[in-house]
């Protein structure tokens, strides 16, 4: 119906054959890299078919190859406008509307649907999609990928993938592979598994059997469709009928197709067919009409099979099913034998890294780099950085990360900038690692810069926002000291005790302020889809207090716990081979849920802390109470939640409620008799790391020192249980002192000082209590013993 180029006249036919042969010629020239000649040919075609979008598309491609994609943004615009021009608004829309109606009508609605449908489509007949935009769309996605616009790229590919079946096999394979790469960057593991499942379903069996290079497996559908495996002794599939049935048996004597059959004979034949258990062969193994493809942009089946296999390994590693990954990687290496496949080696190394066999991981990385081009050296350095970070050797790690960043930026400087070199520049990813490293080395200023650089990719991950907030919190930590000014001389000598209000005097970089930390934490909370965010942060702790609505906007665009947009499965069922992946992913999603719980606790604790620092007791209280409501909240964070809530109540002049939060730790009659708020194990849970696989450790015989936990890590994480008890007692002392119960306060603060002698706040409280009791000497002694106290002569203090 659309003016299909069916040869209606001789001249038309001529034109078609001329343009066809020119198109072939152009394609050959393109593949040979003779872009100038290719453009000439394309322009010849354009003379004959003015404004043909496909010709214009290919011209744009060639031009950009010619100048090395110097302006990818402009290229994108060109593609986009061409795509829009090719898309016809009607056609598909109708089908969609229709399908939705069918769904909504259920069983009985078919007739009604037919009516509606005839209204919609009236004379239009059958829709064609001659104007296939899949190539242009794919190319847009490719450019976005190279520009690190992973989110956009992912959603474009998603749309293509949702309707992948009609897309030309050559393009479809590229779509799948690109989608796989993007999925990995964006951590959309289950989407990746789905694509792998699809690739296996479509090509799997054929891929295994065909040793060719470039034949399209044509019989995929038929092969998969037959139930040779699942239906026992299927009558329909006797082997000789397959062989004899090469050609469609439309003219077979007993074929029900013969139009000569009357209704009656048709009836009888159907009856008899069914009655003899329906031995009627339908399966028609497609006689390999493999069109020989010389196109090098076609991913050959063995190649694809290997890639699929490697991607499977990758998913297994990401989902931490290391046993299965080990098994699969061996198989993959067998397939890859003879070819150099850096991905395979990288994956092997990643596997060993994941299993904490760091030495082996390093060895494999070295091997991979020896046989690959310079483009991967940045990856190599980055991965080495990861390994050394895990070993706790931050300095070495820093060297490698900066080398990774350095080799990326040197690539970037090359002129003209080639598209592929832009793509190889993964500095956005390295930046995140760098940020973590700087954070661990207590350099928040540098860390926050890195995290912001990584933001474009990690925007949707709550963890990024938490890390930035951690930078701000760390930055705010700087000066916490007591100044004692010594004023006057001799008998007039006076001591003025001052505590730090110095922090606010420093002009803080807005990207490191606590206000910024607050916004980041609220972002993280939103991304975590925290069920508390809307309910309880708004909850008034006290009807008399005026709390305004929290800053959190109610969830827009639901993002699930993994920070992934909800996905719909393509295809009906997951093949058997995919069960492994599916189960790993299920398990992994469980793990992610647990990790999200950890992140949530950290976010809420940080939020309560930041609000306290900002002097917003109401919000701090709300955050602390949210934290206490997290199911299976770690005892460490319960402790923090109680302390923060108690402080918030004090600031709100409600010491009774404050005491209630602390009293849960009191055992026995004596109110200063507190137990440990949490145990060492409670702390350890947060730092346990996978132990080395046993078999591996044995085979290595001597477990290397490298693999033990890096020193100093275990105790730097948080307050030890004893110290936490000290904090608890100090705070109980503060409340008691403010309430005037000096005796109890004194007892508590003495205990607290014995547990945490060097906390300025505790020393101040103790000093206060001593002074109230009139023990000036004790008070001054305590100040002198504390390392955080500076005695300053008045002249210095004057400045």
């Amino acid at each position, binding site marked *: 119906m659309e003016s299909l180029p069916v*040869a209606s006249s001789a001249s038309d036919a001529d034109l078609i054959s001329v343009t066809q042969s020119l198109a072939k010629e152009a394609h050959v020239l393109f593949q040979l890299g003779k872009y100038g000649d290719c453009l000439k040919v394309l322009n010849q075609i354009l003379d004959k078919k003015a404004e043909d979008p496909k010709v214009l598309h290919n011209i744009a491609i060639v031009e950009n190859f010619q100048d090395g994609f110097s302006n990818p943004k402009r290229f994108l615009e060109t593609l986009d406008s061409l795509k829009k021009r090719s898309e016809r608004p009607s056609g598909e829309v109708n089908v969609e509307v229709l399908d939705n109606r069918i769904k909504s009508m259920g069983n009985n609605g078919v007739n009604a649907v037919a009516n509606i449908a005839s209204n919609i489509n009236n004379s239009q007949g059958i829709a064609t999609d001659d104007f296939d935009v899949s190539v242009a769309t794919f190319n847009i996605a490719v450019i976005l990928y190279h520009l690190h616009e992973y989110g956009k790229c992912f959603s474009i590919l998603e749309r293509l993938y949702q309707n992948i079946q009609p*897309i030309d096999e050559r393009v479809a394979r590229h779509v799948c592979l*690109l989608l796989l790469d993007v999925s990995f960057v964006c951590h959309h593991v289950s989407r990746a598994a789905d694509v792998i499942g699809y690739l296996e379903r479509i090509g799997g069996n054929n891929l295994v059997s065909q040793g060719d290079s470039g034949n399209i497996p044509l019989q995929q559908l038929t092969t998969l469709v037959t139930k040779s495996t699942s239906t026992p002794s299927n009558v329909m599939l006797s082997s000789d009928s397959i062989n004899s049935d090469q050609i469609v048996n439309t003219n077979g004597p007993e074929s029900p197709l013969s139009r000569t059959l009357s209704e009656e004979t048709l009836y009888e034949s159907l009856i008899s067919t069914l009655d003899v258990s329906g031995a009627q062969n339908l399966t028609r193994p497609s006689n390999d009409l493999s069109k020989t493809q010389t196109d090098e942009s076609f991913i050959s089946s063995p190649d694809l099979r290997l890639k699929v296999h490697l991607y499977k390994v990758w998913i297994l590693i990401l989902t931490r099913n290391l046993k299965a990954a080990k098994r699969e990687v061996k198989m993959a290496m067998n397939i890859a034998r003879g070819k150099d496949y850096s991905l395979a080696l990288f994956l092997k190394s990643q596997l060993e890294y994941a299993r904490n066999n760091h030495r082996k991981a390093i060895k494999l990385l070295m091997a991979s780099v020896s046989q690959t081009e310079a483009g991967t050296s940045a990856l190599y350095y980055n991965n080495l950085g990861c390994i050394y970070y895990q070993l706790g050797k931050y300095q070495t790690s820093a060297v490698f990360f900066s080398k990774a960043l350095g080799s990326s930026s040197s690539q970037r400087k090359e002129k003209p900038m080639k598209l592929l070199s832009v793509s190889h520049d993964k500095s956005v990813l390295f930046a995140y690692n760098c940020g973590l490293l700087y954070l661990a080395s207590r350099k928040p200023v540098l860390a926050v810069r890195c995290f912001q650089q990584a933001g474009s990719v990690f925007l949707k991950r709550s963890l990024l926002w938490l890390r930035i907030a951690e930078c701000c919190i760390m930055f705010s930590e700087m000066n916490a000291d007591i100044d004692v000014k010594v004023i006057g001389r001799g008998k*007039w000598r006076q001591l003025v005790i001052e505590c730090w209000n110095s922090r606010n005097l420093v002009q803080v970089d807005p990207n490191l302020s606590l206000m910024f930390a607050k916004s980041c934490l609220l972002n993280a909370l939103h991304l975590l889809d925290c069920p508390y965010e809307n309910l309880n942060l708004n909850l008034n702790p006290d009807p008399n207090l005026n709390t305004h609505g929290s800053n959190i906007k109610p969830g827009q665009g639901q993002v699930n716990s993994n920070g992934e947009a909800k996905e719909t499965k393509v295809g009906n069922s997951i093949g058997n081979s995919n069960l492994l992946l599916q189960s790993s992913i299920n398990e992994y999603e469980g793990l992610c849920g647990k990790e999200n719980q950890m992140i949530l606790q950290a976010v809420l604790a940080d939020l309560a802390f930041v609000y306290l620092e900002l002097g917003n007791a109401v919000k701090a209280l709300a955050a602390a109470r949210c934290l206490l409501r997290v199911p299976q909240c770690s005892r460490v964070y319960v402790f923090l939640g109680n302390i923060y809530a108690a402080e918030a109540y004090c600031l709100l002049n409600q010491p009774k409620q404050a005491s209630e939060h602390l009293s849960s730790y009191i055992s026995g009659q004596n109110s200063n008799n507190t137990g440990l708020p949490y145990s060492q194990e409670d702390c350890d849970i947060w730092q346990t790391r996978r132990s080395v696989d046993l078999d591996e450790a044995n085979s290595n015989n001597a477990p290397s020192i490298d693999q033990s936990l890096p020193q100093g890590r275990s105790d730097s994480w948080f307050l030890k249980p004893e110290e936490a008890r000290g904090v608890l007692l100090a705070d109980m002392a503060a409340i008691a002192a403010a309430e005037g119960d000096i005796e109890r306060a004194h007892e508590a603060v003495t205990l607290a000082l014995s547990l945490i002698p060097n906390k300025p706040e505790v020393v101040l409280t103790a000093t206060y209590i001593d002074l109230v009791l009139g023990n000036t000497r004790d008070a001054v002694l305590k100040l002198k013993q504390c390392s955080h106290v500076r005695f300053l002569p008045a002249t210095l203090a004057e400045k």
Partner: protein
Amino acid sequence: MIGKPATALLYSLLKDGEKRPIEEIITDFSSKIPRSMHLGICSALVILLEDTPKFLKPTERLVAFALLHHAYSSLQSSTNPYLSLLVNAASNEKTEHPEKSFILHLLGGTKEVLKLSAADYVNKFDPSSHSFPPLDQLQKQYLDKAQPELFNCFFKDAAIKNVIPDPDIPRGCDFNSHEFDLQPGVKPKIGSGDREETLMGLIQSSSLEGLHPHWTRPRPPRLPVLEGELVWVNPDNSHEPLWDLGMCADTSRGAAVRELIVKALKGPLLPTQQEQVLLELTSDPKLVYHCGLTPRKLPELVENNPLIAVEVLIKLMNSPEISEYFMVLVNMDMSLHSMEVVNRLTTAVELPTEFVHMYITNCISSCENIKDKYMQNRLVRLVCVFLQSLIRNKIINVQDLFIEVQAFCIEFSRIREAAGLFRLLKTLE
């Protein structure tokens, strides 16, 4: 907070109590010291007034009290936060009498005293002419009007002054002895100090906050680096833009198929046409998606060309739309052709069970609703053999539909095939 010039000025004003009327001093204070500093200065004065070693001489104290009283004079007197300090001082045993009476004058709002200099007031003071009311009376008189102090903070309310005399002053240094005051021209003894120097230092380093109990606020721990949080990067495929092979491609074969499908919706195709459609569909596996068939058109295709319908559906098995096709298929009016298609599909591909069940239900109800006895018999026979075939080939599990099928058999037990199906069911029980 309070800079050196302001301190010097304040101190000179305090000393001026010796010679100038207090009124003038107050005016100078208001005009020469910016208002923003008044609060800080007042709190410094409070510290100086409260201190046990008396930093201030009696005349200076009077000026200080006057300044404190004046600070809030523009407002209602009951809002003055230093009111209780004044009242306490006025009723304190230890307070010297001239001071007491001066404060009472201030509280009472008598302006005359302010016309005198502090020194004159002290000198002219006649203790016999004054009576000193006790604390509770004064409190009743002045503080009852006072609003309760605006709530500040639980901890800060408990604050005490943050200035303490150094307990470690050299031994043998008697505070009250003037021996240790600095004497001009004399080499200072160990332990001697200058009152003025201390005074100035205190004013300068005074802060609004006193010393109060402090809350220990633990810093939240950093979340340990999670497993897999460090980004390990593997080499990716080299993705390059693709050439569009669809340019100037020959679409005539696809177009021909589309036209044939249009025909196939309207009536049976000729065998050669059928052959052509099937051949093209096989040679280009993607063609089925482009041949123009949609779910709603399926019934027409089934009725006119069931074999093509079967082939198309088989090829569409991987399509996300396949369930819609099935939905249409099992719900279309039961006919020989639809049954043929369903039957072929059940044996060729794995048809979702729910669709098969739906179709069977559809068949059974069609049989029951048909009026023409002859037609009904024919249909029942057909359904029965169809069901038997399904059961034999284990395509359906009878248990799922047992009651429905059994009822069907009983209803039509007069028909031979139904009885046969019933027997088959019994053997499976």
